[in-house]
Structure formats: C-alpha cells, structure tokens
C-alpha cells in the first residue's frame, strides 16, 4: 500500500543534471514505497528537486533497500577519504 510518507532533506550548494541539463537543487524527497519504474515491490526513492524554482523538474532514482544502504556507506566513505585528501596540510578532516 502506498504510504504517503516522505522525508524531506534540505540541500544547499547542490546541483543535479536532468533532461534539461544542469539545475540547482534545494530538496531531496526520500521515501520507501512502491516504485513507478523498478520491478521491485518497494524501493528507496529519491527525487532531487528545486522547490525554490517551483519544483517542476526532478532527477529521480529508485534503489533496492540493500543498494540504498550500500550507497549510504559508500557516500560516507567517499566523504571521509575525500575530505581527508582535500584537507589543508596540518588540518584534520572533520569527523563524520
């Protein structure tokens, strides 16, 4: 059953590339529910939108639950290693 539950994440300084090219995004709508396109019963879906610009366009993904969890881990790992690599000499990367 469709749940209507949506977690909204505010985004700053972010952008996504959709069918019209690059756009700034200020919101990620995140939900775990029935998909539109995936064949799975449920997916972790993320819609990246710019609500400040009317929210008409979106960049969308539908992920399996396992894929979503693995992606979260890889995002955190990439942030950790990337921030460490880009930290100024002598300045520790922020803990995550």
């Amino acid at each position: 059953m469709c749940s209507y539950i949506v977690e909204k994440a505010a985004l700053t300084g972010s952008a996504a590339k959709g069918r019209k090219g690059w756009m700034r995004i200020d919101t990620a709508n995140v939900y775990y529910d029935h998909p539109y396109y995936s064949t799975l019963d449920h997916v972790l879906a993320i819609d990246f939108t710019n609500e400040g610009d009317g929210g008409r366009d979106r960049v969308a993904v539908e992920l399996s639950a396992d894929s979503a969890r693995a992606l979260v881990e890889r995002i955190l790992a990439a942030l950790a290693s990337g921030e460490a690599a880009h930290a100024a000499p002598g300045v520790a990367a922020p803990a995550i």
Partner: protein
Amino acid sequence: MSYYQGLQAESVAFRGDNGDTGEAYYARPTRAGKFPGIVVIHHLPGWDEWIMEVVRKFAHHGYASISHHLYFRDGTESPDDVGARVRAAGGVADAQVMGDTAGAIAHLRAQSNSNGKIGVIGFCSGGRHAYLAACTLPGIDAVVDCWGGNVIVDNPKDLNDKRPVAPIDLTAKLNCPLLGIFGNDDANPTADQVNRTEAVLKKLGKNYEFHRYDGAGHAFFNTMRDAYRAEQAQDGWRKVFAFLNRQLAASAATIAAE
C-alpha cells in the same frame, strides 16, 4: 464473428471535482451494443502503463472502461513526475478523488454505449478509494477493492485533512456489492486487517465476497512487478470478471477470462 473482438482506446477529457476538466484514458469494444462501465482507479505512484493495460483488458472483456488521472491538476508532464510531485505534497484529498471519480462515472453513463450499470475497481491506494466510493457516491452497482491498504486506520495520527476518515468507519453506508482481492503476504493490508474488515462487513450484513491468496503479497496482478504471481493473478482475474459479469450483466463478451 471473430473470437477476439476489437477495441478502441483513447485519451478523453472528463469533468471532475469542482467542475475541473481533466484527462482520462478510455477504452471500449468497437462492436455495436450496450456495455457496462467500469472505472479503474490508479495507485499512488501514478497513472502508469499497467493501469492503461487494465483499462484495455476490461474493454477486451466487454466493458466500457475509464481511468481518470487523479493528478491532472498538478501538471501535464510524464505521469511519474507528476506523481512524485503529488506524493511530496502529501497526496490528493479523498474529497477531490471522490469528486473526480463521480465525474468518471458520469462520463461513462453519458456514452451512448452504456447499459446503465457501473462498477468501480481500484488497486492499492486506488482500492481504498474504490471502497470509499462505494460508501460515499451514488450510482455504483459493484465495487472491487484490490489490496487497498489503510481501509482500517489503527493509528489516528494517520488521519489528516486530506484523509480525514478511515473508510472502515463508513462501511454502514456501503451501497453496492463488494469484491475484495488480497494477498496473504501483504503488509498493508495485513491478513489481520482483511479479517477485521470482513468482520465489519459481516456484522453490518453487507453483500461482499473476499478472496485471499497464499504465496502472494501486494500488487500480485501487476505484470510489471516482481510481485506478480501468475497462478494467483489468473484466478483473481477470473473472480473479478465472474463478480462483475454477475453484478453488471455484461454482454457475454467475456472472451478469455472464464
């Protein structure tokens, strides 16, 4: 006469809630005759391709069938994009869906091919809407609820301005025969919730028929999902057409379903 008869499917305009004009998908047998009408209510993700297949399936089986786009007010882009926008806004209000569904019913009744009988079927959140329609709208002769969740609302916090009443609380007003199709592995509605719904229907003396399927969960008719279960879906569709043919006096053009 050919064993398989022709049908025509097309996009049409219909007059929905508040007099708003929206888009619907309409399919009908092309042969001459009078046909029962069936309104197909789509699920929350949107007005998708599988729903259009269902509309054509009904036409194939001798029904004039319509599925109205519940999100037509929210844009003319791809239905998945419009559906995502509606979801982010908390969905559509029950009152608006009922107004739109009344409009879809009126559209079918206004066609010269109408035999005067109208059924409503819905899937997932559309199943819940179908249940609501049978309890709140006049002029429905039969209703089919396919795994509609949240007919029973256990947590009052799940009620809000858009969905202010649990459909189960309107059951006393159910004014037509009801067919329910459910998978026993579904998480919403659970088997327990289906049992509780049936208990209310029985207590109120309503005309209903429930069919529960082992080895099936949510949306097991949907051939575009891993949830599809061929054996259970075939039997379920037979139950749907047997019920509707009985209630709506279909013109025996139910070719392949029986």
